[in-house]
């Protein structure tokens, strides 16, 4: 099932609505990395509110996605991780290191606004 990607101002928003298999995840990553350049986006938000499990492949794909988009000039923020999912992830050691996370879409947008206002140095936080 393809994930719709919405363009909103300088940002791309991908909202995952159902559990994705590895193939879907890879396709999402490729689509986002490509579209970041196409739309000259400054930020990417991946909303995973609907996910109630996160395996190591998904976590790695999201981390790679964040690093790849950063290389293409866009900051990625993962939003909507459920509390139970978050705790399960850290117990499995899937801590999404170096990837920004925010509570929900609204928080993610305000995070990106803050980041992009800081200019190019923003990525180093």
């Amino acid at each position, binding site marked *: 099932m393809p994930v719709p990607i919405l363009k909103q101002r300088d940002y791309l928003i991908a909202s995952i609505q159902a559990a994705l298999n590895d193939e879907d995840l890879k396709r999402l990553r490729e689509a986002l990395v490509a579209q970041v350049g196409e739309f000259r986006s400054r930020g990417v938000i991946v909303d995973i509110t609907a996910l109630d499990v996160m395996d190591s492949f998904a976590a790695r794909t999201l981390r790679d996605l964040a690093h790849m988009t950063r290389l293409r000039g866009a900051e990625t923020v993962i*939003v909507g*991780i459920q*509390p*139970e999912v978050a*705790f399960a992830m850290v117990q499995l050691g899937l*801590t999404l290191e170096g990837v920004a996370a925010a*509570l929900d879409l609204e*928080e993610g947008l305000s995070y990106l606004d803050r980041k992009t206002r800081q200019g190019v140095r923003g990525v180093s936080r």
Partner: protein
Amino acid sequence: MVELRVRPSHYNSDGSTDIVLRELVAHLRENRSHLRQEWARRITETKWLTVMTPDEVFAEATAVYDNYLEALETGSIEALETYARSLSERIIPRGVETQEVVGIVLLLRDVLARSLFSKYRADFTELNRVLDAYEPAANRIANTVAVGFVQERERIIRQQQEAIRELSTPVLPVRGRLLILPMIGIIDPQRARQLTEQLLRGIRVNRARVVVIDITGVPAMDASVANHLVQTVEASRLLGATVIVTGLSAEIAQTLVNIGVDLGKMNTVGDLQGGIEEAERLLGYKVLPILEPSGNGG
């Protein structure tokens, strides 16, 4: 509805138990005031229920007596169960003990049994028939009341345990987006887990962006709890909240370094005050003292 009448196997089931029971209840109802008084007297004599006044004891005794007879007569213990529960609710907070309640119900059983003895002592066969009907019913009733009491007690204990557990780790909103989690006492793995769950839920509900975990009140910490703390910090970050840990005692600081817990990801500040100030800085708050009104004339 629970069927109360238990027929011993040697007893033919032609419904004569019903007749015996009805006869028996009629007898007990006739002698109601006398037997009730005898029962209340024996309760006082045994020095039970000293936390209640004699009037109260007599009132409850009357209610129990009537419920008892009703249960004997109808075979339904539902009403008695309900009464036993409400009675337990009333008397448990006053410190009535399980042994007292059980003892009192057994006393009533004995008082009634004796009255039956004296009524039927002339006819041994008839007495046996009466007791065959009475004993299982009476035991069942005693059981019901005792179980009801113990269950109510357990319910209260569970409720209190829950309350203590909740209280031991309060998650407190201090300002918009800022939570404080004061940890006090020994943290065992189970408590640590529960604390994490509560914190993550709190972050969600309060939309917190910064959390200050104060562990001034924690006397010691072992490796598993320390690792759990690190995990809590990471899980909070996945929800978009920054965690500041404050109040690490000298002992805990040494333990953590000695056992090699990775504290690189932890944001630590000396005390709670410093932690809140740091949190306010992160959130963009600035606390200013109110100007003295006398300093500004107009």
